[in-house]
């Protein structure tokens, strides 16, 4: 009986949500919550699955609510750059294929994918997550190049956080075989039986915010919230509280005090993510 009474109300709500999405959101934001039931500072359920792709040297799948990103790392040989003969390469690439959302078309990478790729490259560079010298096998002759491919399988907002987390988890999973250079033939010999994990020095964690109506900051926006927001902000922090990246691509202005609030939320988020990742890695070790 109750269901029949609620039906017209549900119908009205969905119509209102489609016709006036901003007003619909404002009603929730006034009560300090969001349509999916979260608080303004609450993240969606985060799940991570490490080592699922057996053909890659390291892989991780991260789900932030509906947003799904998978990262695969492949290691190959390359000659080190001429100006830095003792360094290897880490080459990230973010792919937003049409399968993840109807807003993307097939063809060359769109602007959002390019910006995300540049963002991940900046995070790797700034946070020094891997010392490039660790990737060198023989100075001037041979080095590792790690191709990190991040593919979005479902786009529901907050792609940068998911990509950063997936990258970190995949790099922690990477095992590189030992390589020796044969003195006589000058060829590299790969010992697939002896593998070492990478030396991950820092753990950068990204926290994204969306700015609503120039004043309200909400954490972990969904796709719909990103569309209605007047600005976005992403903070990447490592475990010592140092900032690797403060990415605010335009949008409404923020005061220094609001930035400070975002910093404290980013610190809490870092602890949550680190705990989750440590649990997953610990559960994998006996294998």
């Amino acid at each position: 009986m109750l269901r029949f009474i609620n039906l017209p109300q549900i119908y009205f709500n969905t119509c209102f949500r489609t016709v006036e999405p901003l007003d619909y959101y404002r009603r929730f934001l006034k009560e300090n919550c969001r349509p999916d039931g979260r608080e303004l500072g609450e993240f969606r359920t985060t799940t991570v699955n490490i080592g699922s792709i057996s053909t890659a040297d390291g892989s991780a799948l991260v789900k932030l609510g509906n947003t799904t990103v998978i990262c695969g790392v492949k290691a190959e040989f390359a000659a080190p750059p001429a100006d830095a003969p003792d360094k290897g390469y880490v080459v990230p690439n973010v792919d937003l294929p049409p399968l993840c959302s109807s807003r993307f078309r097939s063809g060359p990478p769109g602007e959002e994918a390019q910006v995300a790729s540049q963002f991940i490259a900046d995070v790797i560079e700034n946070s020094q997550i891997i010392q490039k010298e660790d990737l060198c096998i023989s100075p001037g002759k041979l080095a590792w190049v790690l191709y990190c491919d991040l593919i979005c399988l479902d786009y529901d907002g907050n792609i940068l956080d998911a990509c950063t987390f997936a990258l970190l988890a995949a790099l922690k999973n990477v095992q590189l075989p030992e390589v020796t250079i044969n003195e006589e033939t000058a060829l590299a010999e790969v010992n697939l039986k002896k593998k070492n994990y990478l030396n991950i020095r820092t753990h950068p964690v990204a926290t994204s915010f969306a700015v609503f109506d120039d004043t309200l900051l909400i954490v972990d926006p969904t796709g719909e919230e990103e569309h209605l927001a007047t600005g976005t902000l992403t903070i990447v922090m490592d475990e010592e509280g140092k900032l690797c990246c403060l990415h605010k691509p335009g949008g409404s202005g923020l005061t220094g005090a609001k930035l400070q609030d975002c910093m404290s939320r980013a610190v809490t988020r870092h602890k949550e993510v680190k705990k989750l990742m440590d649990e997953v890695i610990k559960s994998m070790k006996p294998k």
Partner: protein
Amino acid sequence: MDGAMHTDAKSRAETGTESGPRGPGCSLRHFACEQNLLSRPDGSASFIQGVAEKSREQLIRNTCEAVVLGALHPRTSITVVLQVISDAGSLLACCLNAACMALVDAGVPMRALFCGVTCALDSDGTLVLDPTAKQEKEARAVLTFALDSVERKLLMSTTKGLYSDAELQQCLAAAQAASQHVFRFYRESLQRRYSKS
């Protein structure tokens, strides 16, 4: 496009003293500005751009979109073309300043002006405003901010390198103080332009 602008931040000699109409204590380099440079673009070129340029374009575009009153001109496309003539450091900040002045020259209605300021933090934590290319390369962290003219709020920020929260607030405060020099320069150059014609 109707308005065009050439911003030139000249490189300062290492032993030079700080002087000029901006007053002592301002560590920004000398500004120069020339408006209405192009009456009509007389050529075109296309080239393959990298991911870094696309990222920079997105930053500048979103900053402009935040201040331009687009609702007053529906079905209008505003194209901002930035051509780097010479790069002596603080390139993104210079691009932002040029974009803002070009929009003013074109007469596009805006809710505020914006300016770009770059800060560099070197290895012992000293803050340098408007770093040269050499200072940028040697710095531990380089932070670029876009601030609006009404309340000095942060419109855009992009950073390189590692820095702490306290250093960020320090750089932001320094950038906000420096932005008033930039806005005063905007006002003076516009006054000069419109007093001639």
